[in-house]
């Protein structure tokens, strides 16, 4: 047994008072969870502490909170680890999740934000017709693939600290978009392209994410919402040719082509290429727009007209195109997945390793350390 100090953010909506801090000392084994600590405080000292919880085992998704500023499940964070990560090394600070209105104490209004966004993505299977008499025949790998997003318990930890949502409250957000992949990646769904088009054309859709990785850090179940958003983008762009109206996809393409061609980045080409090439009608206004930047760069000598027209090709990068060819020559994209797949676990690996396992995880890879621990 050891003593721990919990500092809880309390808010009583009926009091007319602002939120306040409430400290309790609890007595538990160090590997017990922060939730158990809160439940002890509730049982012994103050039954009015508000927190949703049920399973205590990171399955029901009720107890999403912020612990020392980090979003996660209270039941999934050990007291000793929480104390170690606290600001003063002793006091474990527990607050309600962010990006959602607070109802009372640690209880937030998930309906107002999280569940609205889930509703936004048409969250049910739209069946491929005809519905078979028996089961749909679908590859084993596809079911394992979508199981990673099925593992989402809708706890809202990713929503809590989504930076894009903080800036744009209309952003569909990490949890709902991960849920969208559950349908887009499901071969039984008839509307994959329409779903992707819908979420691409919505200015608050898949291209509203800024790759900050916060949701991956927050997720207690290894769903890695940002990765699912990136997979939605790859499907939209590569499989259905859906244009990213933000220009992000073209920019990425221009970048890759640029490196392939030059070995080192040729900045003068990058901007126009991102808009389809120097002579593309889309590029002209952009170039005109960028004139002040270009002028400054010229004045400071960041690049010269000579450099702009003739970028030196480096000889030492002659192997580079080979790498590009090899990666691009693969039949399928390599997607890493949390759920390891395969049947013959003890069999020898195939002789030619490079041919193995596209669209599935690395055989035998241990599950990722959950970052919230």
């Amino acid at each position, binding site marked *: 047994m050891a003593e721990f100090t919990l500092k809880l953010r309390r808010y*009583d*909506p*009926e009091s007319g008072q602002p939120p306040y801090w409430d400290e309790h000392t609890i007595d538990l084994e160090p590997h017990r969870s922060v939730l158990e600590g809160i439940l002890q405080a509730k*049982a012994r000292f103050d*039954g*009015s502490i*508000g927190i*949703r*919880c*049920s*399973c*205590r*085992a*990171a*399955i*029901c*998704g*009720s107890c999403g909170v912020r612990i020392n500023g980090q979003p996660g499940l209270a039941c*999934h964070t050990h007291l000793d680890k929480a104390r170690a990560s606290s600001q003063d090394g002793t006091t474990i600070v527990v607050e309600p999740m962010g990006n959602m209105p607070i*109802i*009372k104490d640690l*209880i937030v209004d*998930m309906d107002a934000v999280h569940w609205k966004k*889930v*509703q936004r993505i048409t*969250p*049910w*299977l739209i*069946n491929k017709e005809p*519905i078979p008499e*028996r*089961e*749909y*025949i*679908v*590859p*084993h790998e*596809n*079911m*394992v693939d*979508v*199981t990673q997003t*099925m*593992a*989402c*318990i*809708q706890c809202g930890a990713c929503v809590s600290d989504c930076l894009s949502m903080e800036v744009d409250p209309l952003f569909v957000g990490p949890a709902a978009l991960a849920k969208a992949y*559950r349908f887009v990646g*499901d071969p039984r769904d008839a509307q994959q392209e329409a779903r992707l088009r819908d979420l691409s054309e919505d200015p608050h859709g898949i291209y509203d994410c800024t790759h900050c990785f916060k949701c991956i850090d927050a997720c207690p179940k290894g769903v890695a919402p940002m990765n699912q958003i990136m997979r939605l983008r790859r499907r939209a762009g590569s499989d259905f040719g859906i244009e990213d109206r933000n220009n992000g996809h073209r920019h990425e393409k221009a970048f890759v082509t640029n490196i392939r061609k030059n070995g080192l980045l040729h900045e003068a080409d990058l901007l126009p290429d991102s808009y389809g090439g120097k002579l593309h009608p889309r590029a002209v206004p952009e170039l005109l727009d960028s004139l002040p930047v270009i002028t400054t760069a010229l004045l400071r000598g960041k690049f010269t007209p000579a450099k702009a027209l003739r970028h030196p090709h480096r000889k030492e990068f002659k192997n580079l195109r080979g790498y590009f060819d090899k990666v691009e020559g693969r039949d399928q994209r390599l997607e890493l997945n949390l*759920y*390891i*797949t*395969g049947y013959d*676990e003890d069999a020898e690996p195939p002789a030619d390793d490079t041919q193995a396992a596209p669209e599935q995880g690395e*055989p*035998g890879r*241990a*599950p990722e350390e*959950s970052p919230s*621990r």
Partner: protein
Amino acid sequence: MPSHDVLIIGAGLAGQRAALAAADAGATVAIMSKVHPVRSHSVAAAGGINAALKPEDTWESHAYDTVKGSDFLGDQDAIEIMCREAPDELLHLEHIGVTFHRDEKGELGTRAFGGASAARTYYVADITGQALLHVLYEQLLKYHERLDRYEEWFTTSLLLGDGGACVGCVARDIRSGRMEVFNAKATILATGGAGQAWKPTTNGLVCTGDGIAQAYNVGAPLMDMEMIQYHPTTLVENGFLITEGARGEGAHLLNSEGKRFMEAYAPNKMELASRDVVSRAEQTEINEGRGVGPDGAGIYLDVTVVPRKRTLEALREIVNIGKDFAGVDITREPILIRPGQHYIMGGVKTDVWGATPLAGLYAAGEVACVSVHGGNRLGANSLLDTLIFGRRAGEHAAQRAGAMLMPSSSEAQLRDDVRVIDGIIARPRDGRRISEIKDELGTTMNRHVAVFRDADGLNTAHEIVRRLKEEAKTAYIDDRGTVFNQDVLGAIELGYMLEVAEAVVVAAIERKESRGAQFRTDFPERNDDEWLKHIDISRNGEDVPEVSYSPVTITRWQPEERRY
């Protein structure tokens, strides 16, 4: 006052399935739950769902396994229905989007499970319950125009109409504290089990026997209440569940001598004998000094014999549970487990349509007792039970509603419930704390109403429960507010748990034999001559459980000696 044809209380698998079925049958439907539906405890079901779907399997084989698993206390007409309808229900779930595991041909694949003569358990990794619950919730969202959801509403009472039929309920909006009467032509209880009356338990904090107690309080009989399942593999540390899927994938149980002791108890099925048998074997090993871990109070579950890659794919959740809650990498070392309270086979007595003897009131899932599980439930039959009888109750309730007018109801019960809640909030601080009483109840039940029972222990438990019932009347709470007052709901839940516990203890005292999960060391044999019958418990006028009996329905399988 909100009025619906069919009102469903509880939004786990049984409740959600009932709601969808009733809506499909054309009824206006409301589904009410004290937690958001995806927080319901169905979410924790791990291993899978049984169905004889493979061409070489038969529903008769599934039914026989279930009858044998029940120690011949299950009603065979109901078991036949469940097993016959299982394949279609499974395909329905597949069609609405459950991401069931596939084999190499892309067809549905199975795993082995306890007490089954064929591998007929369909699964999604070891998050089957979660996958099912979330997919059904997707359907609820799809039905949003036809189905009203009352999420985080707490039912305080069932309502009886003039003729004594159930006409809805009184409920409290947890968020605002507002109380309201819900009027309905048919009411379906789908509130789950009562595991929180034991400590430890695999059940979530929400499993407080609400529906069982509410039905009992309005006069509906309970059945098979003595039959409490102790799951063979729960963590010694904290009572968390390790799925039977682990043994289904081949994991071993080892005692302090490193022996697979199940050889001595169930030489044919070994670790995959039915749960009552395995739990008893483990407890015997522990009692006879062959346990492992601190105080020899545990047994080793050795998952390392399962190929590591298979474990990581198919048992990922328990890999996490081992790592996060016991500090053990189950792919590398054995983990300490023991039998732990898991499921209540008994519940509100229903017919094969989920209808209780009280007109207008239905029950489905763990709250109900059809009885398909009898003395002992087979693993992966509970998900099936929730879905089959949830659907049947939904259909039947919709049918009943189609043939009647909205019954009238009064506000009298609402006024009573408001008074009760205000009374609890205003109690002076001179009684015991709710949490103390709940703790004592849980510890008592786990000591005396567990794997092995006898008259002395049961009588002690009975006395303690009666005393706790008295103490609960003056127990005080801290929260004086109306918004999300979880404290006052906890006081009401404690009352529900005490009602359920009393019914369990009384039934366990009554059954003077050993059958299924009820093992009486003072009556160690099964006694078909006297006890091949259900024990029914109803409330008499004086708040004392009254015992009566009802016959077991036998269609084609005569009781025989049970060996695994």
